[in-house]
């Protein structure tokens, strides 16, 4: 187990980077606590796989440092860092049995056979692979193969961190849920630092204690799933998490407050005048006799609730109502929960209620 620190990390794939657009990772400073379960969440191309490979040692960063327990491992090889990585598709040794697959990393390090047998049995039992130990790995289903990949990562008890790079990509949807729970269970038993890279918010939010949201090579927010949901620090986070995501409505800041059209929505102390955005989640948008005028366009039933889509001027605003609530039609007024309304400038959180009204 280890505490991992990333200091001033920047990485460019090309040989002579000129500007920020040449960098895949722009400036990363992160600390991962020992034994935590983390998720790296972000859309394709945001740099999360690059970051993962820098931590595991498969890539050496252009600038910056990687520290394991204060030891500089920026240039150390993956084998020296004592890490484990599970890839998008199962990476197993086809010609070996499941048992030999799991034993491989231990045998390469010269661990005595009796200890090898014991660890393999433990891991197999944790992953429910025990009946297949004697089988050749080649003939198994993709989810079993992926479990073997995970097992190879966990079989070494001195591993510093286990990294997962979108490991459920090739798994059938109905089995994804089982493997996700299995991963969570594994973390609670093994208590190793685990970093889970994904673009799927459900996977990230169910697995992790802390989620690192990335976009365009920058860390946008770090927080627990609840924090990310309730207090997005960036419109991207708000938009990305939640289904449907946070509403982002253009507004104007003047006289120390944010205005939409002619309506004063909330106070915005310390925010310079000019264009900005109001962010509010559909869960906190309601309807009433007075408020922002809007027109209901359609409503959809999504199971336990209804999503009502409205138009506020030109902007689409979603609201979520409980399924038995009355759905307004035609022209109506939107009411925003003041505790959950925030002002964003250039995407970043600028003002929120509770910071003075």
């Amino acid at each position, binding site marked *: 187990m280890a505490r991992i620190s990333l200091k001033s990390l920047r990485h460019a794939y090309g040989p002579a980077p000129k500007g920020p657009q040449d960098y895949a990772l722009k400036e990363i400073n992160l600390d991962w606590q020992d034994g935590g379960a983390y998720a790296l969440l972000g859309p394709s191309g945001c740099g999360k796989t690059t970051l993962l490979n820098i931590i595991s040692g498969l890539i050496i960063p252009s600038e910056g440092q990687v520290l394991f327990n204060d030891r500089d491992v920026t240039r150390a*090889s993956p084998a020296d860092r004592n890490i484990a990585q599970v890839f998008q598709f199962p*990476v197993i040794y086809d010609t070996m049995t499941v048992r030999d697959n799991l034993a491989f*990393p231990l045998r*390469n390090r010269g661990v005595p056979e009796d200890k090898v047998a014991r660890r393999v049995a433990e891991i197999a039992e944790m992953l429910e692979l025990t009946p297949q130990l004697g089988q050749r790995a080649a*003939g198994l289903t993709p989810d079993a193969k992926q479990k073997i990949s995970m097992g190879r990562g966990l079989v070494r008890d001195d591993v510093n961190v286990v990294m997962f790079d979108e490991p459920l990509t090739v798994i059938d949807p109905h089995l994804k849920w089982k493997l996700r729970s299995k991963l969570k269970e594994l973390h609670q038993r093994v208590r190793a630092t685990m970093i889970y890279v994904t673009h799927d918010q459900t996977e990230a939010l169910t697995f992790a204690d802390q989620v690192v949201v990335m976009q365009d090579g920058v860390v946008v927010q770090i927080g627990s799933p609840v924090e990310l949901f309730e207090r997005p620090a960036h419109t991207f986070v708000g938009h990305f998490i939640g289904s449907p995501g946070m509403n982002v409505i253009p507004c104007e800041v003047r006289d120390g407050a944010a205005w939409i059209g002619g309506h004063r929505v909330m106070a915005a102390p310390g925010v310079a005048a000019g264009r900005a955005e109001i962010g509010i989640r559909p869960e906190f948008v309601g309807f009433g006799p007075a408020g922002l005028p809007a027109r209901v366009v359609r409503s959809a039933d999504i199971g336990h609730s209804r999503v009502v889509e409205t138009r506020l001027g030109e902007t689409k605003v979603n609201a979520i109502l409980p399924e038995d609530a009355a759905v307004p039609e035609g022209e109506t007024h939107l009411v925003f929960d003041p505790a959950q309304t925030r002002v964003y400038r250039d995407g970043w959180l600028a003002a929120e209620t509770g910071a003075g009204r």
Partner: protein
Amino acid sequence: MKTWNNRAWLMVVPVLLLVAFNALVPLMTVVNYSVQETFGDNKFFWAGLRWFEEVLKSPRFHEALGRQLLFTGIILLIEIPLGVAIALAMPRRGPWVSVCLVLMALPLLIPWNVVGAMWNIFALPDIGLLGYGLNWLGFDYNYTQDPVAAWFTMILMDVWHWTSLVVLLAYAGLSSIPDAYYQAARIDGARPWAIFRFIQLPKMKRVLTIAILLRFMDSFMIYTEVSVLTGGGPGNSTTLLSIDLVKYALGQFDLGRAAAMSLIYFVLTLLVSWVFYTVMTRDEPQ
């Protein structure tokens, strides 16, 4: 998923006609000759299986077959490991790869008679680079007179000519291995030999099977290069099966014997190829 449609036969008819014309008609001719005997004058008499018996019992055939098997065996033992080794040593990416592949493919594109002629000149004892060089180093080398030297030259020529096919196939197989496998091996602390044995070799199995099968078949059928290089000599020390057959068929007028030998040769090639193929694809999961 493929759909069942018997009308697809129409699309296959041109191929069928052309190949059947070239394959079945001559084959029938050969079968025809193989069971008849002629004393010239276009008169033929039924001879039954006499020709087959004669060929199968003749020491000349056995010798040619023996030489052929020896040749093919040596070839496979050299070219396959050598080709794989070179493919492994080549860079996986980068600007030099194209250049290397093009240069390596060059011997494969030279007309076979030119290959024979090239080596004929190259190995001449007093005026060829190889011949002169070997004699200068102290070896008593003359492939036109010494059977051992002739075999050495013949084998060296084939290695020069065909190893690149194995290299190209093996390289293509290696290139198809996703990087993640090598990354996982690094993380698992695997050493180069383990990487070869557990990742590269299994993933190359398919292309290697094809390489071995092709090299076996082609070396078993080899004619032009050897014929131009040594003409089957000195004496008949390098007379392989094809050369022996052509001597019969086009040289003398032993049509019956030639035809019988042709059929035996063909069946032999098919049989051994089939055995090879079955053995090598035995435990393919598909």
